C-alpha cells in the first residue's frame, strides 16, 4: 500500500469524495431506486398488484407467468451456450488455425451489434420467404414465429436470437480464462496417459470453473434483460424485460416497478454467490473423486473412444451454430436490402421498396437522420461522462479497502435488465420522482451512464491489473514524483488502452441499447428504437435498410477496437 503523505491527503480526500458522490448520484442511486420506490409506495403497489378493485391479483399472476417464462428461456439458453460454448472456447484458446481471428470476431459480433437490428435480421431469416424459406424453395418462411421448441416450450426464433446474443459471453469469458491456465497441466495429464476428454474433465474443467461460472452468469443476465431483439421476435410471448416496457407504456408503473425490483433482487442473489465463489478462487477437485473407481474406469475408456472418434463434434458443431445464428441472418438482411431496393420483388409494387419507404410519403429517411443524430449525441455524451467517473472510480476500487464492495455493486447495473434500469431512472429523475429531468434525450443520457460506468470500469481494471502499476508508481515516487505526478505521468499512460477499449465498448453498447431507451426516451428516438417502430408499423423494407445501417456501424466499431487494442 502506498503511503498517503499528509500534505496531499486533503487533496486526495477531496478527489475521492467528489468521485464517490458523482458515482452515487449517477450510478448507485438510479440502480437501486426501484427497490426503495416499491417500499415507499408499498400501498400503491399492493393496490395495483395484489388487490386491484377490478381485476384482483391478476397483475401478480401476470408477473409470475412472465417471470417463469423468462427464467425458462434464460436457463435453457445458458445450458445450450455452455454445451457448445465450452468446446469452442477451448478451441479458440488452445488451437492455432487459419481464420481464427475471424471466427473470434464473428463470435463477438453480437456483442457490439444493436440487438433490435439483429433481432430483425433473425426474424427475416427464419420466418419469411426472403430468408431461409425462400432459399429452400418454399413459399413461406422456414418457421412460424410461434413455432415452439419441444421440451423447453419456448419459441424457436426467440431461442435462436437469445443464443446468438449470449454465446459471446460464455465463449469469450471462458476463452480468456482458459488462456490464463498454464498449458503444462494439460500436457502433464496427457503424457500421464489421459485422453483429451479425460484431461478436460479432470484438469481443465475444475481449473476453468470460475470462468464457466462468470460466463454463465453474464449470459443468463443478458438473456434475462434482453429487450431490443426480443421485442421484435417474441410474437405472443412476453419476457420480463419487455413486460416492463409494455406496462410502463400502459402506465401500470407500480406493477412494472414491482417486477423490476424483483429482477434487481434476483440479479443480486445470482451475483453475490458467484462473486464470492470466484473471488475465493476455490478449486473444485474434479468430478471423478466422488465416483466409484469402477465407474471412473469405464468413463475414462469411453472418453478415450470419444476423444479419438468424435473429435470433429467439438470443432464442427460450434462452428455451425455461429454460422446459423450470426452469419446467415446478417447475410440475409444484406441480401434482402438489395432485393427490396427499388420494389417488392414478389409483388413488384414500388411502395414495398426501400427507396419508396425512405424517401416517399412516410419519409423514414429523415426519421433515420434524426435518430442517428440522437443516438450519436447520447452515445458521445453518456460515454464521456461515464469515462470521467470511471477513471477515478477504478483507482478507488484498486486502492481502497472498500474497493471490492464497489466492484461487486457495479456488477448489478451490468446484469439487471436495462428496461428495469430505465424504469428506475424514470421514476427517480422524472415527474413522479424528483422531477428534475423530463423524458427525452437527457434522460436517455442519464440512463446510459448507469450501465456505461461498469463497462468502462471493468475494462480499465483489466488494464490496471495487467500492468503492475503499483510497482511503477512506487518507482516514480522514490524518484521524486508526488502521488499526483505519479498518477499523471505513469499510471494514466499505462492504462490508456484500457480506457480507450472501455470507451468504445460503452459507446457501442449505448448505440445499440433498446430496453431502457424505450422507457425514458419521450419523443427522442434512437436508431434501435426506430427499427422496432418500423417493424411494428410493418415498414419492413425501411427496417431492412436501418438494420443494415446499424450492422455496418457496429462492424466499423469492431474494426476500430481491433485496430487500437492490436488484437
Amino acid at each position, binding site marked *: 500500500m502506498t503511503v498517503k503523505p499528509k500534505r496531499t491527503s486533503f487533496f486526495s480526500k477531496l478527489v475521492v469524495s467528489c468521485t464517490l458522490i458523482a458515482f452515487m448520484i449517477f450510478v448507485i442511486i438510479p440502480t437501486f431506486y426501484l427497490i426503495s420506490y416499491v417500499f415507499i409506495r408499498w400501498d400503491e403497489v399492493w393496490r395495483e398488484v395484489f388487490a386491484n378493485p377490478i381485476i384482483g391479483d391478476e397483475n401478480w399472476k401476470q408477473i409470475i407467468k412472465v417471470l417463469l417464462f423468462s427464467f425458462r428461456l434464460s436457463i435453457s439458453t445458458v445450458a445450450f451456450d455452455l454445451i457448445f460454448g465450452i468446446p469452442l472456447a477451448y478451441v479458440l484458446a488452445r488451437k492455432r488455425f487459419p481464420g481464427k481471428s475471424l471466427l473470434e470476431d464473428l463470435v463477438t459480433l453480437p456483442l457490439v451489434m444493436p440487438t433490435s437490428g439483429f433481432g430483425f435480421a433473425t426474424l427475416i431469416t427464419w420466418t419469411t420467404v426472403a430468408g431461409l424459406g425462400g432459399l429452400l424453395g418454399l413459399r413461406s418462411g422456414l418457421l412460424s414465429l410461434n413455432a415452439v421448441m419441444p421440451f423447453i416450450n419456448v419459441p424457436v426464433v426467440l431461442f435462436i436470437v437469445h443464443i446468438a446474443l449470449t454465446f459471446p459471453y460464455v465463449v469469450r469469458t471462458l476463452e480468456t480464462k482458459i488462456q490464463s491456465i498454464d498449458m503444462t497441466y494439460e500436457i502433464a495429464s496427457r503424457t500421464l496417459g489421459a485422453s483429451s476428454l479425460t484431461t478436460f474433465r479432470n484438469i481443465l474443467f475444475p481449473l476453468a470453473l470460475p470462468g464457466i461460472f462468470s460466463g454463465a452468469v453474464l449470459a443468463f443476465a443478458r438473456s434475462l434483460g434482453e429487450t431490443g431483439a426480443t421485442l421484435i421476435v417474441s410474437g405472443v410471448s412476453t419476457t420480463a424485460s419487455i413486460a416492463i416496457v409494455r406496462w410502463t407504456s400502459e402506465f401500470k408503473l407500480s406493477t412494472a416497478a414491482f417486477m423490476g425490483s424483483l429482477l434487481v433482487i434476483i440479479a443480486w442473489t445470482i451475483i453475490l454467490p458467484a462473486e464470492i465463489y470466484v473471488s475465493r478462487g476455490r478449486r473444485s477437485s474434479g468430478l471423478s473423486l466422488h465416483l466409484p473407481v469402477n465407474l471412473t474406469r469405464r468413463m475414462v475408456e469411453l472418453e478415450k473412444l470419444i476423444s479419438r472418434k468424435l473429435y470433429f463434434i467439438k470443432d464442427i458443431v460450434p462452428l455451425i451454430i455461429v454460422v446459423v445464428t450470426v452469419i446467415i441472418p446478417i447475410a440475409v438482411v444484406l441480401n434482402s436490402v438489395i432485393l427490396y431496393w427499388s420494389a417488392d420483388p414478389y409483388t413488384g409494387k414500388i411502395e414495398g421498396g426501400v427507396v419508396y419507404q425512405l424517401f416517399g410519403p412516410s419519409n423514414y429517411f429523415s426519421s433515420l437522420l434524426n435518430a442517428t443524430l440522437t443516438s450519436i449525441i447520447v452515445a458521445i455524451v453518456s460515454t464521456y461522462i461515464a469515462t470521467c467517473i470511471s477513471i477515478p472510480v477504478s483507482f478507488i476500487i484498486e486502492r481502497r479497502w472498500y474497493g471490492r464492495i464497489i466492484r461487486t455493486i457495479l456488477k448489478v447495473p451490468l446484469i439487471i435488465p436495462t428496461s428495469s434500469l430505465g424504469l428506475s431512472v424514470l421514476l427517480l429523475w422524472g415527474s413522479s420522482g424528483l422531477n428534475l429531468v423530463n423524458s427525452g434525450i437527457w434522460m436517455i443520457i442519464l440512463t446510459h451512464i448507469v450501465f456505461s460506468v461498469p463497462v468502462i470500469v471493468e475494462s480499465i481494471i483489466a488494464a490496471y491489473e495487467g500492468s503492475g502499476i503499483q510497482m511503477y508508481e*512506487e*518507482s516514480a515516487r522514490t524518484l521524486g514524483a508526488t502521488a499526483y505526478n505519479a498518477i499523471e505521468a505513469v499510471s494514466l499512460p499505462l492504462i490508456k488502452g484500457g480506457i480507450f477499449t472501455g470507451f468504445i465498448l460503452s459507446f457501442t453498447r449505448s448505440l445499440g441499447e433498446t430496453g431502457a431507451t424505450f422507457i425514458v426516451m419521450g419523443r427522442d428516438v434512437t436508431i434501435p428504437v426506430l427499427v422496432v417502430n418500423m417493424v411494428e408499423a410493418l415498414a419492413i423494407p425501411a427496417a431492412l435498410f436501418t438494420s443494415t445501417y446499424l450492422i455496418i456501424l457496429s462492424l466499423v466499431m469492431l474494426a476500430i477496437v481491433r485496430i487500437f487494442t492490436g488484437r
Partner: protein
Amino acid sequence: MPLVRLVNVTKRFGKIVALDGINLSIKDGEYVCILGPTGAGKTTLLRIIAGLLEPDEGEIYIGEKRVNGVPPEERNAVYMFQNFALFPHMNVWQNVSFGPVIKEWSPQKIRNVTSEVLGMVRLGERRDAYPNELSGGMQQRVALARGIAAGARILLLDEPFGALDARLRVNLRTQLRSLVKDQGLTTIHVTHDQEEALMVADRIVILREGRIEQIGSPQEIYNNPQSIFVMSFVGGANFIDGVVSNMDNSGSTVEIRGRLYIRVSDTTKKIGERVVVAVRREDVSLGKSRRRDFNNLVGEVEDAMFVGGSMEYMVRLENGMSISSRILLEGGSKVFRKGDIVIVSFHPDECRVFPYPERGLLKEIEAI
C-alpha cells in the same frame, strides 16, 4: 555520522510480525547487503526505508532528519525493483530524465544531467530505445542512471538480479558495485543469495524472522558465524549433535552418536551440556591413513561429485551419520570412488561448538 539509522523499527501485518525491533546504522557510501531466507522481512525493511511503508513502531533517520511520515519523493532514496520497473511507455531518455523533469529543473539542466548520466552508464547511443528493446544488463544500467539523475543519495535494491540468468548475474553484480561505488552512493541491497552478498557487500546484515541475526563484514560473517543459522545459511557446514563428556585446558571432548568422540578446542561449554559441533565442508579431509592431532573417523564414500576444480564427497560414518567434504583438486590429489572406505579427518581448531538450539537442530538449518 551514519546516513541511514533505524531505531527499534517494528512492523506487523495482521498477526504476523514482519520486523521485530530492528536497530541498524548505515554509513555514508557504504554497500550493505541484507541477507536472509524468503519471508525474513528483507523487502519490508527496504520499503520502510524508501517510505513505501510506514513502521508501526520505531524511528527512521536519513542524515539528521527523522523521516517517519515523510513521503517517498522527499527521501532521496531510490527503490530499484527486481525487474527494474523502467516505465514501459517511455524511452531511455524519458526514463532517465523522469526525476529532473518531475522536479521541474530548467530544460538546459535536464538535458545536461540526463546526457551526463547516460554517458556514465555508457548508454548515450541507446537514448531512443524503449525498455523492451534492451537487454537485462542495459535495463539495469538505465534504472541506475534514472536513480542517479533523480539525485539519489541512497540506492535500495530489491533482489536486483533475481530475474536474470546465472552467468549474467555474476557479471552485473561487480559492474553494479563499481558503478555505485564510483558515484559514492549508499546502497542497501536485499538478497537471499549468500554468494552474491559475500561478493559485493562491505557489510552484511543477516535477517531472520524479522530480527537481525548478525551484522558484520563478509569475512566476519563467514569465519565467525554467531549462530548455527548463520553458519548454515552462509557457506553451509556439517552439524553434529553431541554431549560434552570431558574438558581440559586444551579443549573438550564431545560424545556423539555410536559412542564416538570428537575433540574440539572450545572450552566455553560445561561437561554434560548438549551441543552442536559444526565443521565447514572444506575443513574436512579424506585419506587412507589417520592424521596426527586430528579427529579421525572411519566411513564409506556414499557419493562423489565432481564440481569443477574440486570434489564433493558424502561419507557415511560407522555410526550411521553422514558427513560431507569438499576437497580442492590439486596435482596428485587422490580421487575416491563410491564404496571406498576412507578416514575422515578434521582438526579440533576448525570445530565450532554451539549450544544445542531450543527449537531443535533441524529448525535452524532447514528451509534455506
